[in-house]
Each structure stands twice: as structure tokens, then as C-alpha cells.
């Protein structure tokens, strides 16, 4: 089902061709990072801290080095000094010192799984045995696992250089404070007929990509290095690795392998500099691949959080005030997505008066990385639950309540500037008109919940080249690693502009030396920003085709036009010429045609989604079954609708997993107890229904094809939608994630007790 506001007449865009990299992926030929092998290659493994918080007193590697087959061991002593400063790197702001400390612990370990040393050996088994022979002496410190503990006066300090600039320059675990303010909150609450105030807690969760992190590093004697790895951003791997290794950026080439999922988690580096360092020491290529346990313990999950929300509405359902306090776990180093969360938490609604305070807090957990609309899901869980309660108080249907307050073009965003054209209202109406919403949900312990979500989406830098081959077919080269089928979209945009069949366009993801700088595959930006570069590169090729045809016809370029895949001479009866016919004449008319474009994309169109969920709760065990689920999302323009639906379904599935069972479970020593897919419980095929989609196409005026990013926002509403559905099913408001059976059962038993007591009192 699609509702389109674009009046275009596309031939390729909007169709569903077979993806170009598909055959390689169903035959096992596609090469992912761990599939690379080179002659003489060694295997690396990483020694990781068993403690959440400890000083490293000494590291002894002699015994391990003596093990036959062990070729080299590196520790933080092998890394250059890194500076304590903030720096822009792609879409991230990084601190080189903290980045270096995360790659290999300097003098302190800050989480269970923190890397301490890396070994290269002739087999992965030998490297692993060598790890057991490395002797590390620790001085164990008390672990700081939650924002509550971290912000208590006198709490153990994680980072000696982290100081509170707002209050007397003291050492602190609070890395950052954000504040957003509008109107008069006190007056707002006075005008409210209903005020709801609640505190929410969400657990740290992981992106859960199936492919573990990997890297093969090759350092040559001339000082040049090549890294093969599965990453969302080859250029980021290059700049971050150069930073950590103290190498010039130009001395590193990063070859992005096929990537087995990322969802934000593969936008930074872990193994990449280690592979180069070990290769430098041994003179051989070195491959490192994380185990699943290492992925969970030591890559970058997203923050757990504590969020207090107070919101007020008038009787007729108008939101009038919001006061919000939120604190996110950054992990061991600053940089949680709490700022983004703060800007998202009431983004879908016009609220005249608000005050939002947000805090980034370091704790003894792995440094968080991006995860699909970072920060927004936690935030929406809190605000969308309150919205549901206010709707109930006002006696208004929750969708109608949202419609009454929904932002539209011209309304101010939380950060101030007004929205351009957006599609929140259309997603709400899309849900209202869906077969799911129109169906009746019957049966005991069943409930239906709805929630909406917002995500900014990103622009940033992308490059593309379009090469026209001698037979009139084309290739399109970009620097965006393809995680979800973006190559097909790039080929489709090229094919659309050049009037070619999509099978005549071959899309390529190039290495860092073969294409201009391209920022990370993240922020839902590839189809938007790289798509913009591809569109312009194809247009550049079109312009050149016109010039060549003009030469052939001995006319001026403005006497030639390009339409329907053919060159037409204006006026007289010259028969039109296809690219196929023109291509053999490239050599005599000036040589090959390469269309080029690089952009720092402006005109980002934010994304909205609304999700509807039906659940059934087992009243005796608290187990929740998802019965039905529909998601409506504004795509701007769906280039390849199947992969747009795929993004919506995938994000929704992750949101449902987040809602029900996923969590980082640490014991009181700060050891992660569920560092495997057995106990980090992501949804299986048997846990989910079909996920119905409503693709809204409210064209983004900032993009030549109307595209807005679609990769992220679908993960934002599901957690709140499930919570609201559970409430409808069993009358319990869940204020923490995951809403796992032990927690829900406890809440239901308490609820039953209290209703019994109140019945007795009547």
C-alpha cells in the first residue's frame, strides 16, 4: 500500500528489480570481511579484561611470546600518544585520546571485555592459547554500572580528565549536559487539566548484526597499509585508524568488504588498527575476527537510560507543557546519543512550553556506538507512553490525540527551526486506514497499542561517478558500503536518469582510493545523499552525452536534448540516437564519458513513523506474544519499494525485540552474563508475525527525487507501541524495558493485589 504525493512519471524508480549483488549473496560467493585470506596470513586474537573497572598494574607477555606459532603481541605501549580534544570525523565527533584508550586500554580497564593486548599467531587456536599465557596484574576498582551510581556524590571516577565545566571544574562522570527550553513550563502546567509524571528505565541493548567485526590488515615495508573489513564507513575506518596509529590518512587504504549488518554498530573501529599494528610487527597480513561474545562485551551497544517525563494536556486534548529529565549511559567514554534523544522526545508534537535537560554519563560498560535512530527509541518509549495515558485521560482515541498535536510544515522543531514538508500526519492516517486498524481485536488478555516516532536523518558528504561503457551500458561507483540493498537503488537512479534498463547499470562500492570521500552508511543517508551524488553524476554524464551527440550531428549542444534514453536533435528529421549507438563514437568525440559528482548534501528530510501492535499476554507467566503489527513510514520517495519495506520491517523487528527481551544483563561485579545469542534474546522467526507496511511518499522538497532516508525511524515507535498494547491487554503500565516475563508478571501480580485491595476497601 502506498500513498504518493509525487506526480512523477518514473520508469525505473518505484519498480522492484532484482538487486545486482543478489546472485553472489545467494550462492555464497559474496566476500565478507572474514572471508578474505592472503598467502602467509596470520590470525589475531584480543585479550580482554575480565573486570569492569580496574587499574592495570603490569602486563607480562614473555610466556605467551614463547608459545610456538606466536609471532607478535601488541599492547597500548605500541600506540602513539593521542590528544585529548574533540574532532569531527564523518558524522561523529570523536576524542582521539578516548578512541585510542578504547582500542587498547592504557593504564585502566573500564569495562568487562575492554581490549588489553592482541596476539598474532599462525592459527586462531594458537593465538587464543597465547592469550591465556599473558599475565595481567589488576587493582580491581568498584564498578559503576548505572547513571544513578555514577552521579552519586563520591562515586568512583572513571576518567581522570573528565571535568564538569558547569560546576567548579570538578572531576565527574557526567560528560555533557544539554538543555532545550521554550515558553513558560510552569504556566503551561497551570493551564493543563491533566498532568502525568512518570520515570522510565531502559536497558542497554545491542544492534545484533549477525556478522562479527573483522579486519585484515596488511602493512607494507614502504609504510603503506591496506585494511579489508566489514564497515559502514570505509573513510571513517581510514581516518580513525590513521588517528590511532599516528599514520597519515593517505597511507591507509580501506577496502570495504561486503558487510553483514551494522545498524550503526560498524561506524567506528575496534580491530582495524590492531590488524595493521600486528602486520607491521610481523610483516605478514593479519586477520582478526571477533567472537560473538567479544561483539557483545566489547563493541558498541546503545545506551540504557533513565528518563523522567512530566506532560500536561487540556481536556480537549491539547498538549500544553512538558518537563523532561534524561540521562543516558555513554559506556566507558563520553558520547551517548542523549542529545539526539532530547531533540526527539517530543519532536512529533507541538508543545508550547517545555524544558528538557539531558545528561551524558560514563559508566563501566562498553562505549556505546550508534544504533538505528540513536537515542530516539528510549526517548519515545517514555514520551509515547505518557501521550497514551493523556489520551486515555482525555477520552480521546490515541491516534486522534496524536493528530490533534501532530507537527506539520512550518511548526518549530524542538531545536527551534521550523519543519519543512513532513509526513507525520500521513503516517497516522495511514495507520487509521490500514486493514489492521480497521480489524477488530477480540479475546481476553489482548490489547492494541500505537506509537509514533521521529528521526532527523542525515545529509553529509558523498561522491559518485557514472562510467558509460563502450557498449552503452554503465557502471555507478560510490563510496557507500551497501548494507540493505542500496546498490540496487544507486543503479536504479542512474538507470532512471540515463533511460537505461536497470540491468545495464552495474553498481560498485569502491575503496577509499577509488572514489571521493564518502561519509558513513548511517543516518539513513545513503539513498538520500549518495543518491543525490549519483543523480548529479548521471546528470553530468547526460550533459556530456548531449555534447557528444551534438559533435556527431555537427550541432550546438542546446540543439540536442536527451529524453527517454535517447538523444534527439531538435528540429529536422534526424533519427534519435541511443546511448548504445553513440557509445562506439566516444573515442572520436573526446574519449570516455565519466559523470562525476560530490556533494555535502543539504535538504535533509526528517522521517516519521507510526506503529500499530496487537499483543496477547499470558496472565500466568507474563509472556507477550506479538499477534499483528503494522508500520506506516514516510519515505519521501521509495526508490526500490521492497527494500524500503525491508527497512521498515527490520527496524520494527528490532524495536519489538528491544521491547520484549533484549537487554545487557550485568552481575554486581559488572560482568556481562549474557554475552551470546542464547541469552541475548533477539526475536526468532517464530516470535514475529508478518510485518505489514504502509509506505507514505510525502516528497522531500530538498532532494531531486523527493527521497528522505528510511533506514532508522521504524525502530523508534515499537517499544512504546508494545507498552501501550500491554496496558490495553492487562491494565499494567510498563515503565522499564525489556518488558520481559519476570518484569511483566511482577507488575501484573502487584496490579492484581492492588485491585483486590481497592475492591476490598470499597
Amino acid at each position, binding site marked *: 500500500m502506498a500513498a504518493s504525493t509525487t506526480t512523477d512519471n518514473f520508469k525505473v524508480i518505484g519498480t522492484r528489480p532484482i538487486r545486482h549483488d543478489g546472485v553472489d549473496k545467494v550462492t555464497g560467493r559474496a566476500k565478507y570481511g572474514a572471508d578474505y585470506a592472503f598467502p602467509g596470513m596470520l590470525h589475531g586474537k584480543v585479550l580482554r579484561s575480565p573486570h569492569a573497572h580496574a587499574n592495570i598494574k603490569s602486563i607480562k607477555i614473555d610466556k605467551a611470546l614463547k608459545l610456538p606459532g606466536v609471532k607478535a603481541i601488541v599492547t597500548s605501549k605500541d600506540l602513539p600518544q593521542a590528544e585529548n580534544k574533540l574532532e569531527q570525523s564523518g558524522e561523529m565527533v570523536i576524542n582521539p585520546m578516548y578512541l585510542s584508550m578504547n582500542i587498547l586500554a592504557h593504564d585502566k580497564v573500564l569495562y568487562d571485555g575492554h581490549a588489553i593486548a592482541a596476539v598474532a599467531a599462525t592459527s586462531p*587456536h594458537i593465538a*587464543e*592459547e597465547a592469550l*591465556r599465557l599473558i599475565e595481567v596484574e589488576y587493582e580491581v576498582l568498584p564498578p559503576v554500572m548505572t547513571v544513578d551510581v555514577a552521579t552519586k556524590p563520591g562515586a568512583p571516577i572513571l576518567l581522570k580528565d573528565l571535568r564538569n565545566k558547569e560546576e567548579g571544574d570538578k572531576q565527574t562522570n557526567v560528560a555533557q549536559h544539554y538543555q532545550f527550553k521554550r515558553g513558560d513550563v510552569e504556566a503551561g502546567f497551570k493551564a493543563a487539566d491533566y498532568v502525568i509524571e512518570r520515570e522510565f528505565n531502559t536497558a542497554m541493548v545491542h544492534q545484533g548484526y549477525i556478522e562479527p567485526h573483522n579486519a585484515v590488515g596488511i602493512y607494507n615495508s614502504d609504510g603503506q597499509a591496506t585494511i579489508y573489513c566489514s564497515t559502514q564507513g570505509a573513510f571513517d575506518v581510514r581516518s580513525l585508524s590513521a588517528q590511532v596509529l599516528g599514520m597519515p590518512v593517505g597511507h591507509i587504504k580501506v577496502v570495504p568488504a561486503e558487510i553483514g549488518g551494522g545498524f550503526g554498530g560498524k561506524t567506528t573501529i575496534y580491530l582495524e588498527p590492531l590488524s595493521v599494528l600486528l602486520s607491521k610487527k610481523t610483516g605478514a597480513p593479519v586477520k582478526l575476527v571477533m567472537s560473538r*561474545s567479544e561483539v557483545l562485551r566489547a563493541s558498541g551497544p546503545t545506551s540504557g537510560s533513565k528518563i523522567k517525563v512530566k506532560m500536561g494536556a487540556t481536556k480537549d486534548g491539547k498538549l500544553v507543557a512538558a518537563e523532561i529529565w534524561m540521562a543516558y549511559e555513554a559506556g566507558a567514554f563520553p558520547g551517548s546519543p542523549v542529545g539526539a534523544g532530547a531533540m526527539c522526545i517530543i519532536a512529533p508534537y507541538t508543545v508550547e512550553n517545555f524544558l528538557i535537560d539531558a545528561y551524558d554519563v560514563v559508566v563501566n560498560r562498553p562505549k556505546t556506538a550508534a544504533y538505528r535512530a540513536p537515542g530516539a527509541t528510549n526517548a519515545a518509549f517514555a514520551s509515547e507512553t505518557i501521550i497514551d495515558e493523556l489520551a486515555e485521560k482525555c477520552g480521546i482515541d490515541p491516534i486522534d490525540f496524536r493528530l490533534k498535536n501532530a507537527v506539520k510544515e512550518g511548526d518549530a522543531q524542538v531545536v527551534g527551526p521550523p519543519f519543512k514538508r513532513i509526513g507525520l500526519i500521513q503516517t497516522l492516517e495511514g495507520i487509521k486506514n490500514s486493514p489492521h486498524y480497521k480489524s477488530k481485536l477480540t479475546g481476553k488478555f489482548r490489547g492494541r497499542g500505537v506509537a509514533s516516532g521521529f528521526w532527523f536523518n542525515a545529509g553529509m558528504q558523498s561522491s559518485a561517478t557514472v562510467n558509460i561503457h563502450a557498449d552503452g551500458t554503465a557502471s555507478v561507483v560510490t563510496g557507500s558500503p551497501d548494507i540493505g540493498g542500496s546498490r540496487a537503488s544507486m543503479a536504479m537512479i542512474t538507470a532512471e536518469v540515463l533511460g537505461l534498463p536497470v540491468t545495464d547499470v552495474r553498481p560498485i562500492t569502491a575503496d577509499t582510493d577509488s572514489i571521493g570521500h564518502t561519509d558513513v552508511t548511517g543516518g539513513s543517508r545513503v539513498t538520500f545523499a549518495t543518491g543525490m551524488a549519483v543523480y548529479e553524476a548521471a546528470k553530468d554524464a547526460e550533459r556530456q552525452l548531449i555534447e557528444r551527440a551534438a559533435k556527431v550531428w555537427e550541432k550546438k549542444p542546446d540543439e540536442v536534448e536527451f529524453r527517454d534514453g535517447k538523444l534527439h536533435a531538435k528540429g529536422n528529421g534526424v533519427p534519435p540516437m541511443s546511448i548504445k549507438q553513440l557509445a562506439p563514437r566516444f573515442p572520436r568525440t573526446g574519449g570516455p564519458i565519466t559523470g562525476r559528482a560530490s556533494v555535502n548534501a543539504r535538504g535533509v528530510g526528517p522521517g516519521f513513523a507510526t506503529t500499530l501492535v496487537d499483543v496477547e499476554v499470558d496472565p*500466568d*507467566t*507474563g*509472556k507477550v506474544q506479538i499477534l499483528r503489527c503494522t508500520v506506516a513510514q514516510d519515505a519521501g520517495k521509495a526508490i526500490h519499494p521492497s527494500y524500503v519495506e525491508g527497512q521498515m520491517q527490520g527496524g520494527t523487528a528490532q524495536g519489538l525485540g528491544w521491547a*520484549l*527481551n533484549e537487554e545487557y*544483563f550485568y552481575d554486581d561485579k559488572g560482568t556481562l*552474563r*549474557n554475552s551470546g*545469542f*542464547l*541469552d541475548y*534474546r533477539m*526475536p*526468532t522467526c*517464530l*516470535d514475529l508475525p508478518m510485518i505489514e507496511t504502509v509506505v507514505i511518499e510525502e516528497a522531500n522538497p530538498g532532494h531531486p527525487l523527493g527521497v528522505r532516508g528510511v533506514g532508522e525511524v521504524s525502530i523508534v515507535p515499537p517499544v512504546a507501541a508494545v507498552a501501550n498494547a500491554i496496558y490495553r491487554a492487562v491494565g499494567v503500565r510498563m515503565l522499564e524495558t525489556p518488558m*520481559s*516475563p*519476570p518484569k511483566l*508478571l*511482577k507488575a501484573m*501480580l502487584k496490579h492484581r493485589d492492588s485491585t483486590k485491595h481497592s475492591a476490598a476497601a470499597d
Partner: protein
Amino acid sequence: MHAINYEAPSSLDQAVSILKTHGENARPFCGGTDILIQLRAGVRRTEHLVDVKKIKELQTLSFDAKKGLRLGAAVPCIEISDSDVMRKHYPGLREAAHLIGSLQIQNRASVGGNLCNGSPAADTTPALIALGARARIVGPAGEREVPVEDFVVSPGRTVLKPGELLVELLIPAPAPHSSDAYLRFIPRNEMDIAVVGVGASVTLDGDKVKAARIALGAVAATPLLAGKAAEALVGKKLDDAALEAAGHAASAICKPIDDMRGTIDFRVHVTGVLTRRALTIAAERAKKN
């Protein structure tokens, strides 16, 4: 993983002799679905894996209406869940085998391996205990039989002595008007380890319970036989009050832990719930036999 040796004897004698030679340093190896994970994680250390899948006695699944079932220790779960004999006579044990892991796991894992792994949360162990199964063990000192409820002594440890091998499980023929059921609680619908597991068998005499056995998994250091819970039912109609009493009695013997799979309170509560549900299913089935 550290280096290991692998041998795959084709006779029981050979297997026992290899196991005896290496003593503590050897372990029987069947589906590998637990031991390989444990060796990789460094939780167990064994230098010799003795693959027992080629030994005929361990691959037997045979049923006799009088003598009951002989279930070879290495019979893969998939064979059990595909078996009509199991479906008809031991539906609870079949369900337990069918619940273990994914199809990929069921194609490799065995009931014997599940038992020898010694996990308190093993799915098939409560089902075996509910059926009154006995474990036939062969070792350097000959042969012995152990009731399954006595087989696991602590998490990961069993009565097997160095050199000993579990050959088969002997399960009595079902009495008339009897049947069994196994239920477990997991947060997802597949792929989890039991947070609570309850096996129950019921023999009816008219509308009254003639005999019953209830066994619990994942609620103590070892699988438990809930004797009092079963006794509470004998001679009674299986009505709500009786089920409630059995559930309470089952919950009462739980000594669970708080962990990433569930809390103590949750496990105790759900033990009662599953006990009632499993008894109801077993009794429904028994009526039809």
C-alpha cells in the same frame, strides 16, 4: 580451543577401554552441541573426545509393549520427535526432545547427551524422571543402573565415573490409562534454555489419579523429582483444587537462582503454573489411552 584428540570407536568395549585409559582426561562425544561450546569457552577441559555415535547399542530406539522403551544414549532428538512410537506412548518425552534448540540442534543432540551434560535446565531430564526412566551405565567395573533423578549430582556433574559411559535409557511401558507431558517456560518461542521445565506423568483410575510423577527442571542445582506434589494427587480427582495443591507443592521445593533467564520469584511462581498445565495435558492424554 586447545588441542584435542578424537577417536570414534565402533564397539562399546573399545569405547570403555579408551575412556578408561584417559580417565578424567576423556569425555564421550555425541552431538557436540554442549561440549564444543564448553571447550571453546574454557568451561571444561578435555583432551580426548570419544565419539560414541558409531556404537550400535547407543543408537537403538526400540519399544516393547511389556518391557517398555530402550532409548540409546546417542539417538538424535530428531529421531525421537519423528517417531510414531514416541508420539503414541511417550508424548511428553517426545515434546521435550522436540523443544531442544533448533532443528539443527535436534539433528545432532541426543537425550543421553542432554542428561550427561548435567545441566539442571536440560529439557529431556524432567521428562525422563516423570516416566521413571533408569540410566544403564557401562564402565570398567561392569554395568549398573541408576534412576535418572539420581543421575545429575550438581550443575555439570553426574554420577558417571571416569571410564564410564551412559549406554541407554530404560523407560517402563506405559500403564493403562496413563500418559505424560512436558512443558517449559522460555521468554521466546524457540532457542532458549528452560527458565522452568515441568515433566508430568499421570495414571488414571476412572476420574481419579491412580499414580503420578512430577519432575522439575531449572529450579534447583539439579533436576528435581517432586514427590510430594505427586502424592498430593493420588486418589483424587484432578480438579482445580488438586491442581492448585500440586502446583503449590512443586513450587515449595524449588531452590532457584536469580539470573539472566529469570528471577527466583518468577521461577517459583511459574513452576506452579506449569505443573498445573502439564498435569492437565497429561491427564487429558491419559483419558484417551
